[in-house]
């Protein structure tokens, strides 16, 4: 099983796509970090001298979620698109092992994206706080929670991408549906219908971050958010397995 996970990671890291997605993800994080650093303390944005401001700043580490999602999608739709799925199943005819390896690989890649985002957040956030004259002692349990939430959300969204890709198989369709969901539908629901939105993956991730909702609606407690994320991961993993194992590869 370990060698199958290694093979899946090899697939991800032997194409240039993963670096492009990582660059985009970090780019989004960088824009968020710079914008928040400049705007903090101004209208409506909590200052970097307050715990809320610091938490919001570091939560930018996870703003490239959608790119982790895309990498997860590509890990399966790329196989169908380029028909490498044939080779994959010839090496490992027991397909549930392939699905399992892909799920683990997605979690690892997502974690990698999350850690990269966190590193960037510290690289930009700490100097920004120093420039604004804020005390670094504000980086405490809140920020640790944000970081854990970022990693969890990144891993989950990569798995979500894998699941949606397994279901749809068409690369473009999966990416369009995924981005539409992450950027439009889910954001709208979380913002406008918080009673529904807090139960969605995005709402659950926000709950783990502990970031205040823009419109004041409540999120689940952090532990419930974490449990919900794990539940979603299990659901997506099941979708990925069921749609992959029985299908004829023609």
């Amino acid at each position, binding site marked *: 099983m370990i*060698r*199958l996970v*290694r*093979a899946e990671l*090899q*697939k991800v890291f*032997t*194409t*240039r*796509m993963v670096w492009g997605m990582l660059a985009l993800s970090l780019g989004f994080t960088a824009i968020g970090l710079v914008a928040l650093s400049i705007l903090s303390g101004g209208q409506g944005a909590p200052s970097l001298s307050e715990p809320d401001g610091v938490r919001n700043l570091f939560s930018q580490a996870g703003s490239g979620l959608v790119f982790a999602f895309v990498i997860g999608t590509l890990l399966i739709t*790329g196989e169908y698109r*380029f*028909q*490498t799925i*044939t*080779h*994959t*199943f*010839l*090496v*490992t*005819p*027991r397909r549930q092992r392939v699905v399992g390896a892909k799920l683990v690989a997605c979690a690892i890649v997502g974690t990698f994206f999350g850690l990269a985002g966190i590193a960037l957040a510290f690289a930009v956030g700490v100097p920004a706080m120093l420039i604004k004259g804020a005390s670094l002692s504000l980086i405490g349990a809140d920020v640790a929670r944000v970081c854990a939430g970022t990693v969890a959300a990144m891993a989950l969204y990569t798995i979500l991408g894998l699941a949606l890709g397994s279901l749809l198989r068409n690369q473009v369709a999966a990416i369009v549906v995924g981005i539409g969901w992450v950027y439009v539908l889910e954001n709208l629901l979380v913002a406008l219908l918080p009673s529904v939105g807090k139960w969605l993956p995005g709402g659950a991730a926000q709950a783990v971050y502990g970031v205040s909702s823009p419109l004041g609606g409540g999120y689940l407690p952090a532990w419930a958010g974490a449990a919900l994320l794990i539940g979603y991961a299990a659901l997506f993993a099941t979708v990925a397995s069921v749609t992959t194992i*029985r299908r*004829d*590869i*023609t």
Partner: protein
Amino acid sequence: MAAIEIRNLTKSFGAVRAVNDVSFTVAAGTVTGYLGPNGAGKTTTLRSLLGLVTPDSGQALVNGRRYADLVAPLTEVGAVLEATSFHPGRTARNHLRVLCTAAGLPDVRADESLDQVGLAGDAGKRVAGFSLGMRQRLALATALIGKPKILILDEPANGLDPAGIQWLRGFLRFLADDQGCAVLVSSHVLAEVEQTVDNVVIIAQGRMIRQGTLAELTSDGDRGVRVAGAEVQRLRARLEAAGATVESPESGVLLVHGAPPETVGQAALDEGVVLSELVRRRSDLERVFLELTGEPADAPPEGGGGVATAEAVPAVTETSGGAR
């Protein structure tokens, strides 16, 4: 136990019965051509054999087991399916290394396989820049990576240039003769495999039409002895006296049915007639194939015409008859 065994295999896709009750075996050390027109069910059969397609009924076994039950499948069976099944952004070497990792084979097998198919110099190139022929070679390299004793190839000659096809023929013979592999190779173009295969299985519209050795199949198409020479008409009476039917499609040429070439040669010797040609005509595989699969042949079979092949030189197609 046969290396490859297909037993009463049936598979439908929706209302289309792609493969209908097909059975055949392939023994170690032989090359079997799996022939049929496009859409005959060849690919579905091969994919069932490889566990990629689940048959509705019947069995497709390699070394007596289902592919999915093999512990280390790449070391037992190598397969070449579509030519395009590579990620364009990944290099040839990395493609093979991913397979090595997943199969637990040493990384060095990647370069060894590339070397075996003549791609050693292109190992570090992205597949996007590969020609169709190079992709076919890379596909063959993926099949060889675990040093399997069974090879299953679906239309491997597609996209190869004439030199590549010749190389492939030699390579398949090498695998069967020197390495003792069982090779199953599908094709819709007979000329590609005719000189390579020992046995032939012909399929059309999902049904198996014929199975046998190459010689068995082509001998079905015995179409007489052709004898040519300026004074060949002088043989006629003697041959007819020997019980043969003789026709003369053009001046200086006789077509003799019902007598072996030896009888014709003896007649020429007795009569003192100079011959410029004496061959047993038999249908080549192409014609047998077209007749069996119900495809319209390109020339009428009678009248000494069409595409016939001399026994002595099977590769040379005779066109001097009534093909005009």
